[in-house]
């Protein structure tokens, strides 16, 4: 079970802050993205945005990052704090 969270513009575009994925066959962030993209046309569009960032357990990662049950995966646009 993977907890997935979305922030900022992404959260608004998906109209979703958090969801849980139970597919045990997902082993990387890239695979999780593909799974999420398959949900609908809107999700497809959002998850093919090149600038999307991802984090696993609060660390910024790239698509190759492996994930396991219990992980928290986050997707969000480039950050704009400060």
């Amino acid at each position, binding site marked *: 079970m993977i907890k997935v*969270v979305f*922030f*900022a*513009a992404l959260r*608004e575009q998906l109209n979703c802050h958090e969801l849980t994925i139970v597919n045990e066959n997902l082993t990387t962030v890239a695979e999780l993205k593909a799974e999420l993209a398959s949900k609908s046309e809107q999700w497809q569009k959002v998850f093919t945005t090149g*600038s999307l960032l991802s*984090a696993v357990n*609060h*660390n*910024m990662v790239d698509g190759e990052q492996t994930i396991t049950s219990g992980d928290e995966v*986050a997707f*969000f*646009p*480039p*950050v*704009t*704090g*400060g």
Partner: protein
Amino acid sequence: MTTENYAPEISIQSVDFNLADEVALLEKDNAIDGAVVTFTGRVRNKNEGKDVTSLTLEHYPGMTEKSLAKIISQAKERWRIGRVKVIHRVGKLAIGEQIVFVGVTSMHRQDAFAANEFIMDYLKVQAPFWKKENTNQGEQWLAAKTSDENKAAKW
């Protein structure tokens, strides 16, 4: 990992902060550090030609603290600095309100200057904050700037 692990160096808060109080804490019982550099970022009234009326700041609780702690720890490895404080506000902020504070003390001034700017440059590209701008033409999420990526890449 709780926010308290990072106290007192990091604070993510919706309430305002007081510059003088923060500097007093950095200097308290700290007669060894002769230099104190502060950065304060405030909500500007203009951005790219638009009249801004307010900002709304969102963040990723947990990851924010972790990423700031990592940035501070990198700064401590690179420069000989004493105390550090980073405050970042979240929620809705009006024009002129303080958004972010970075304070660094050191024995020699160049360390505090460099570390402070380094922390700000990295915070800008690595800490999970997002600004939504409320303008006279509606609201919109700010786009990240390539110039910020370049500044962080310089170090």
